[in-house]
């Protein structure tokens, strides 16, 4: 069935919004999803976060992530509804199933290739625990410079 897709919905509410308001919002989303015959796979509340830029007068916001399975028509309705709420200062809904499938495929392909290589060399297909540990020690070539966040890099 082609209509079963996975979406990730993220919305931001002001930091001063209450628990009840968030719960209310969640039920609103849930009813829309149900109406279209979808399901909410999981809900994650990231809590208060600093926004990277000001949205309206807000500098901080409460992020909520919902992973939704359902048909595509659902996103249009969600979008329309969420735009009406004053409490939602920003929202975004993206389809993720195809990207995750691609990632999974390439992971599987790599695993398969690795197993083949190892078998050819006369090793068991899966790396053993000790081998993996040794590899991790060798791999520590991080130069630090790339891992820092923005604003901290003074030498540019």
């Amino acid at each position, binding site marked *: 069935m082609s209509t079963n897709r996975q979406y990730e919905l*993220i919305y*931001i509410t002001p930091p001063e919004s209450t628990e009840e308001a968030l719960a209310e919002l969640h039920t609103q989303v849930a009813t829309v999803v149900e109406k279209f015959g979808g399901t909410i796979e999981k809900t994650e509340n990231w809590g208060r976060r600093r*926004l*990277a*830029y000001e*949205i309206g007068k807000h500098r901080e*916001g409460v*992020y909520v*992530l919902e992973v939704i399975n359902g048909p595509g028509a659902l996103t249009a309705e969600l979008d329309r509804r969420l735009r009406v709420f004053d409490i939602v200062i*920003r*929202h*975004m809904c*993206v389809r993720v199933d195809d*990207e*995750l499938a*691609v*990632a*999974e495929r*390439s*992971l599987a392909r*790599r695993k398969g290739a690795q197993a083949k290589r190892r078998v050819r060399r006369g090793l068991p297909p899966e790396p053993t625990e000790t081998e993996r540990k040794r590899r991790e020690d060798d791999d520590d070539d991080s*130069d630090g*410079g*790339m*891992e*820092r*966040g*923005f*604003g901290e*890099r003074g*030498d*540019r």
Partner: protein
Amino acid sequence: MSEDRDSRGGGGRSGGGKGAGAGAAGKDGARRGFFRRRRVCKFCVEKIDYINYKDVKLIASFIPERGKIQPRRISGVCALHQRALQTAIKRARQIALVPYVTE
């Protein structure tokens, strides 16, 4: 003054440039405090298949101070992953995880 710089440039590393691998980059990495170039794709090396837009830590390393997306001639990311990274950054910008611009 400019002459001085020219002579230095022409001397030691005329054959260096792009063809030299990561090993050579490490050797003269300290020269004049330049940002050491990493000629390998981080996502290929670390085998990251899916560049998640929610992973701010990962994405932020490809966003210089100004907030623009780092070109791949600087970061060394391969074309495939640069495209994926681009979408991830644009999504992250939309929900204010990373900035569009910073003054």
